């Protein structure tokens, strides 16, 4: 589904991603871990098409298409969803309105008719139960005054509404209380099918107890320096990143 080859990306002339290779197949869950500042959010944003980053080398292919040819909104239309580490606020625009616009803009991109109010409401109700989000939150301005956890839950609700092929969750677990992590993970699991895939960015192995990854990758200084299975996450939790750093320095 997603194939990243030797990806290099800069911001303000500073190289952040320094040769990423990653393959994600339909039905898989991949987790990316790594110390602060290693480039996890950068990678997520580059896949989603954020233009502040300059891709200097390499390629990203998604469903057989060269993603570089697509704008961020077209990538969303192609089925890429990013749950933001820091969701932004839009005062005066209700969350419901925002999601309705998103749903219909993506439908338009795919050549589908817009959803009418009745259909939309039905879908909202269904997904609200799935991620256990409160109605009152959705009639408030987008993320304005939401607590950290509410913002994250709202991201997952949007994911549920948009039903992406590839969901990139950038630290969606950070800021969630223990019950909320379980609910969000549950939501993600229920939305999994053999046709979609998830890329989880997280610092904590706890999330991976609920959403079992097929692969775990460690990102360090803009490169994936180690890949493994779920066991790797346990090892990291136990030992910290030092042993990886040591390995990298040794290899260098």
């Amino acid at each position, binding site marked *: 589904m997603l194939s990243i080859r030797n990806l290099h990306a800069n911001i303000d002339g500073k190289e952040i991603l320094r040769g990423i290779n990653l393959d994600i197949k339909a039905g898989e869950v991949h987790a990316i871990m790594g110390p602060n500042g290693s480039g996890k959010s950068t990678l997520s944003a580059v896949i989603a098409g954020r233009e502040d980053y300059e891709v200097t080398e390499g390629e990203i292919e998604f469903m057989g298409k060269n993603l570089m040819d697509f704008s*961020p909104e077209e990538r969303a239309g192609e089925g890429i969803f990013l749950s933001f580490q820091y969701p932004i606020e*839009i005062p*005066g625009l209700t969350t419901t309105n925002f*999601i309705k*616009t998103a749903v219909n*803009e993506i439908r338009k991109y795919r050549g589908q008719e817009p959803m009418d*109010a009745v259909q939309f*409401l039905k879908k909202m109700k269904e997904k609200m139960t799935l991620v256990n989000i409160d109605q009152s939150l959705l*009639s408030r301005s987008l993320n304005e005054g939401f607590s950290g956890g509410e913002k994250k839950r709202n991201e997952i609700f949007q994911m549920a509404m*948009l039903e992406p092929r590839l969901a990139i969750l950038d630290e969606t677990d950070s800021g969630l209380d223990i019950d909320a992590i379980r609910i969000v993970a549950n939501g993600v699991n229920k939305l999994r099918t053999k046709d979609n895939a998830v890329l989880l960015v997280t610092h904590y192995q706890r999330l991976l107890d609920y959403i079992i990854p097929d692969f775990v990758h460690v990102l360090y200084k803009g490169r994936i320096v180690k890949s493994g299975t779920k066991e790797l996450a346990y090892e990291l939790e136990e030992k910290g990143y030092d042993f990886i750093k040591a390995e990298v320095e040794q290899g260098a």
Partner: protein
Amino acid sequence: MKSDEIQSENIVVDEGLDILEQTVRNEYKYGFVTDIEADSAPKGLNEDTIRFISAKKEEPEWMLEWRLKAFRQWLKMQEPHWANLKYPAIDYQDIIYYSAPKQKEKPKSLDEIDPELRKTFEKLGISLDEQKRLTGVAVDAVIDSVSIATTFKEQLAEQGIIFCSMSEAIQNHPELVRQYLSSVVPVTDNYFAALNAAVFSDGSFVYIPKGVRCPMELSTYFRINAENTGQFERTLIVADEGSFVSYLEGCTAPMRDENQLHAAVVELVAMDNAEIKYSTVQNWYPGDKEGNGGIYNFVTKRGICKGNHSKISWTQVETGSAITWKYPSVILKGDHSVGEFYSVAVTNNYQQADTGTKMMHLGKNTRSRIVSKGISAGFSQNSYRGLVHVGKNATGARNFSQCDSLLLGDKCGAHTFPYIEVKNKSGVVEHEATTSKIGEDQIFYCNQRGIDTETAVALIVNGFAKEVMAHLPMEFAVEAQKLLAISLEGSVG
């Protein structure tokens, strides 16, 4: 779950976006010229011009005298330059002060209106057809200098409501006109008001009798058509005791390279327990992307809450004009009276707006509320200028002002000039102001959800302006949303 609430809200958005799509790449769509013969005064301004206008309109002697007096005062006055506006000097002798579409006779019924004119109004989306009762809006259409048609007149007359052109009111209701004309905006109030008094050609007149709630929106559409013509309309609305009226004003003009002058005066009078809601969707031609052409809009709007417990509410959505100089104000004379000002002013490219309000608290326990939302893009300059005055007898006066600015890009400017004068210690005046920018990260967030940048800007801007838009009559809210989006097209990304 409040499902009804969500549902209706979404329907509005739906329409808003559809219209947005239709109008993408559609620049100023009202920029056409109607090919009709006009009956004009020669260029320039002197006493003869004024006599010409007055004669054309077959005005009584007192009206001519009133105009001449205004003109003589105007000659002694200076054009004001305290506003944060820059424009080349206006040559008042290079303007045509009167232009009327040639019609054989004043039409007796709507069917007699020149088909070319009729087409113009159809293009503008204004129905002059009284059959279309569904729209529930009575319209007075003013083209260049004269009122062309007023709809629903008879139905309104049944309740004693007078809704007609100002010229008709001068003929048919001289006692009301003489009583209230220039009672709120004196002839010599300011340079542009004096000019208007001298040369005004038409406008709307509304009288709502005691205890009557006007059953429909009253609306006037102003359109400048002829070249080199100034438009000087004058509107007077009187709401007698315990009455209510909601009035809407809209305006458009063709695209022209040279600037055209518009200097209107609006006066509102609210007696005891009366309420006037005055809404404006101002869409005069703003000039092109390089700042050529566009309307110079110098407007004096003022209402007086004359009676106790009366209320005047101004709502304006200002997207057009090259230059806007406009401060709809309320004199809170009656005890317990209420004044409100809700404004969205958008400037793009090289537009300049200096707009705001004056709330003059004179009576006891008077209250006022100001909500101003300025949106600047391109190379434009957008200023809020407001005065809250609490007189020495205005015990218990309260004001709340909120002035927010939103910037798109970094070549435009937003400015706030709040003036506060409190002469009574019991007065409470609160002022809040914020300035924000549409951020790259807001746009990217929307893009990531499949929403393109143009639509994202529309969503953000409409969110920003929501509190004001909520005060527009329902029929016009969608149109106004669409206008905001169109006027900001191409301003980001």
